[in-house]
């Protein structure tokens, strides 16, 4: 009996020793096309290095929830994770959850991408994926109506009016409060406004309010029914079903709306164009939507660093581009093989946005989730009243004050 027990113990110990020798890291990825690409490429990395990579994939908000819970309770064994710089970057940095990334060559990334990836003079995030706002439109419907692609807001409104019918929605964009904030940002910029300026909320300015009124009027008059409960995941099926003539949203959805297995609209009828200009020019957002970081409490920092170098390498970025993922690395956009494959209009919109765009699509602050809800209330009021609400200005002032209070609570008021 005793001998048997001893044998089992020895066997267990031996197993433990073997598994301890095997180097392992734990990586948390998002359910995002690039996360999927990495997941399928990781066996190559394991084979080349002998390091075992334990991967978990989560939907984006669940990813934030999981990371926050693990880091806040100091129980985390995460080594590397995908992260959204504009949504959680400031908060993660403030709580000391990011490890500074040293010895990495960041020269291939545009300066405004590095601005949101760094705090002080240290980089904490390697930019992965970029997105910017564009106008998707139905080439066939515009042609039938004898309309050229709108290049400014006045043309956009006229086109939406002409295209809108009982059967076709003239114009769509996100209307679901907080989710609308990111896509509204380019409208606000093109009217000459902003969400934050010098660390203070300014979305109650005359310019921003004009933009919010225009957005509300467009969606109320020419938008899909029930738009105040619609984010991209509700609008995309409508576009794929051929019910929408024009749609402003992030460039990341192009691949899915021209995918014949998902869309009833033939790819040759789907156009992509620069976001229309407003009264104050055309500066749509272009942001780093995803990056990758090393966890501060990781016990395998050297392995993590090595992994992140591979996962954000030029080679994988090129593979991402060839899979229609718009990567943040600058050089891959110049690659001949990539340019031969990617739709020229998509490249043209990227080049425009990279040159003139603004690197924020939401108020850049720690309490961004709550601030988005507050701005979302103003957006919904505007949509519900087709932009005519007499109390919109007062509401925006009240919400701007609430956002300022949040900035004060987190010590970010007036800091920039």
């Amino acid at each position: 009996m005793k001998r048997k027990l001893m044998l089992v113990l020895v066997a267990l110990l031996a197993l433990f020793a073997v598994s301890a020798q095997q180097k392992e890291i734990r990586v948390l990825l998002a359910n995002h096309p690039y996360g999927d690409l990495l997941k399928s490429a990781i066996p190559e990395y394991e084979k080349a290095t002998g390091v075992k990579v334990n991967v978990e994939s989560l939907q984006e908000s669940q990813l934030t929830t999981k990371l926050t819970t693990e880091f806040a309770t100091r129980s985390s064994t995460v080594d590397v994770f995908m992260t959204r710089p504009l949504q959680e970057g400031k908060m993660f940095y403030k709580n000391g959850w990011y490890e500074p990334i040293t010895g990495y060559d960041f020269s291939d990334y545009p300066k405004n991408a590095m601005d949101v990836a760094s705090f002080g003079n240290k980089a904490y995030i390697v930019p992965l994926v970029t997105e910017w706002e564009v106008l998707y439109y139905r080439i066939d419907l515009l042609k039938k109506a004898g309309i050229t692609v709108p290049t400014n807001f006045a043309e956009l409104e006229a086109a939406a009016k002409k295209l809108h019918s009982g059967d076709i929605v003239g114009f769509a964009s996100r209307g679901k409060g907080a989710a609308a904030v990111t896509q509204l940002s380019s409208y606000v910029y093109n009217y000459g406004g902003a969400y934050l300026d010098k660390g203070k909320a300014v979305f109650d300015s005359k310019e921003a309010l004009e933009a919010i009124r225009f957005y509300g009027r467009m969606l109320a008059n020419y938008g899909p029914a029930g738009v105040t409960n619609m984010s991209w995941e509700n609008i995309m099926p409508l576009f794929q079903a051929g019910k929408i003539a024009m749609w402003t949203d992030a460039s990341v959805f192009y691949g899915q709306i021209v995918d014949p297995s998902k869309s009833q609209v033939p790819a040759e009828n789907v156009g992509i164009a620069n976001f229309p200009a407003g009264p104050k020019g055309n500066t749509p957002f272009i942001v780093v939507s995803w990056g990758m970081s090393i966890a501060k409490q990781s016990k395998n920092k050297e392995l993590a660093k090595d992994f992140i170098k591979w996962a954000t390498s030029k080679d994988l970025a090129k593979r991402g581009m060839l899979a229609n993922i718009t990567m943040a690395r600058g050089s891959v956009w110049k690659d001949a093989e990539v340019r031969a494959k990617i739709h020229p209009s998509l490249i043209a919109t990227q080049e425009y946005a990279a040159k003139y765009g603004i690197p924020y699509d939401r108020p850049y602050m720690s309490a961004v989730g709550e601030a988005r809800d507050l701005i979302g209330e103003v957006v919904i009021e505007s949509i519900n009243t087709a932009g005519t609400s007499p109390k919109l200005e007062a509401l925006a002032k009240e919400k701007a004050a609430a956002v300022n209070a949040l900035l004060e609570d987190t010590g970010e008021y007036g800091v920039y």
Partner: protein
Amino acid sequence: MVSKRNRGSFIEKNLHIIFPLPAVVFIIVMMLFPVLYTFFMSFTNWNLTSGMPLSFVFLSSYKRVLQEPRFIKALGRTFSFTALAVSIETVFGMVIALILNREFKAKGFTKLIMLLPLVSTPVAIGIAWNLFYDPTIGLMNFMLTQLGLPKLAWTGSASTVIPSLALVDIWQWTPMISLIMLSGLASLSNEPYESARVDGATEWQIFWHITLPMVMPTLLTAIILRTIDALKTFDIIYAMTGGGPGYASETLNIMAFKYSFEYFRMGQASVVLIILFLLVLAMSLLIVRMRKSLEL
């Protein structure tokens, strides 16, 4: 050192402690600890966006939450959603049970079909119903227009979102009430019915004076279970509207989720949860008491 025999008698003597021990440990670790910890957090101002360590603020988080108009509205919505859903489920569940409470060929099959909504994944249900409810391409508006009725915005409008969500809950949970009631009806004895029929009672009189009083304990059990569950509804609302449009379908549970994982105000989120916990507790005690007095 304890001898073998002594050890044996120790176990024998304390069997009444040892056997329930695993269950007790489970309840303490998985249920009691989280509740107590939430209670502890509700007295702090733990807030991850500030990057500050948590500090004890006693009742100020309670004060802040209770003064929030958004909280009062969420509280009202939690009740209106529950009342709407559970009352209709009870009536429909009862009616369906009465209809099914007779011998017919496909009885087993019908019961099986009725079980299906109960075993479906809530998030999948939410996604499917979202497609039904889509005002432009959805099935519901298609049916309304076929019937010559005006289209509705369903979950897309603040005025219709709560009834729309309650409808999903009703679709999913009415069968549960029916199944509980069916087992209750099956256990009734035949004698009172026979004598009532001899006395010439109408079907309605039989239901009102005989069936209903006799199944009341079962019915109340079903209502308790549903009420507690409906007060805590999270998955369907989260998957379908996330509390929107605006905050129009935000119940206490959704509010607590947003406060903790979107606003990262852990202290105040705990306050909302503690209040929800007390509400559910009070409701269950109330109904249990009602049930007892009914049995007397």
